[in-house]
């Protein structure tokens, strides 16, 4: 069963990341998540929105980023949608965290955090274009 959806829609300025963080944290907290889980959800959403602003819109602050939260059963679900250039997350290699610092490629950390902090992360390309990221986290589930 899906709950009422709550949504925030902002322009693709990095300055709006803070507003999104406040919105998502409030929704996650109201869902009954622990403060640690709230922090993790906020971080995953921040990374997804940063990707939309930096990669999909390539820094253009006039784009639109929509974040929608709802409950589905015992899961807190967040959708991040943009209308920017299609971003192929599967083409981004995971960072090799075992490499020495001098050899380490520093890209891919945002996607790494999204996958680590959420129970499920799905990337989609809506028919109308842009990108959609659907992230799920079980309330009261793992928080590490």
């Amino acid at each position: 069963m899906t709950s009422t959806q709550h949504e925030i829609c902002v322009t693709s300025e990095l300055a709006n990341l803070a507003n999104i963080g406040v919105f998502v944290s409030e929704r996650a907290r109201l869902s009954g998540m622990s403060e640690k889980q709230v922090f993790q959800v906020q971080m995953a959403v921040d990374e997804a929105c940063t990707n939309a602003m930096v990669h999909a819109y390539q820094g253009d602050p006039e784009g639109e980023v929509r974040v929608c939260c709802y409950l589905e059963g015992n899961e807190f679900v967040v959708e991040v949608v943009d209308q920017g250039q299609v971003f192929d997350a599967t083409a981004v290699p995971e960072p090799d965290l075992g490499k020495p610092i001098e050899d380490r490629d520093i890209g891919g950390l945002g996607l790494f955090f999204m996958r680590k902090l959420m129970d499920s992360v799905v990337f989609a390309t809506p028919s109308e274009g842009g990108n959609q990221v659907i992230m799920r986290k079980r309330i009261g589930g793992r928080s590490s």
Partner: protein
Amino acid sequence: MSDASQEPQASALIAPAGRLDASAVPALDRKLSAALEAGFRHLTVDLSQVTYISSSVLRCLLLAHRQADQQESYLELVQVHPRLMDTFELCGFDRILHCSPPSLPSVV
């Protein structure tokens, strides 16, 4: 007798505050780069007032750490909140970035 005011300062302190997401990177990068280019040998980043760090900021700190290593300077992070430490541990940065008390820093 040496004049202490003429000696280069050995250490510097940077103390960002609040939420450090991607929008905070340019300012933090400028401060870190300025301190390293000024030749400070010991650069301390006090995170006691920081509530959040995104991957963009971690990249910025990692690059500063690399630059510090290359010029034989020392970059350390102090007063890291446990929740931020969780983030560092998750990506292994806790094994890379140093954490120790600052030594007589001066504000950049």
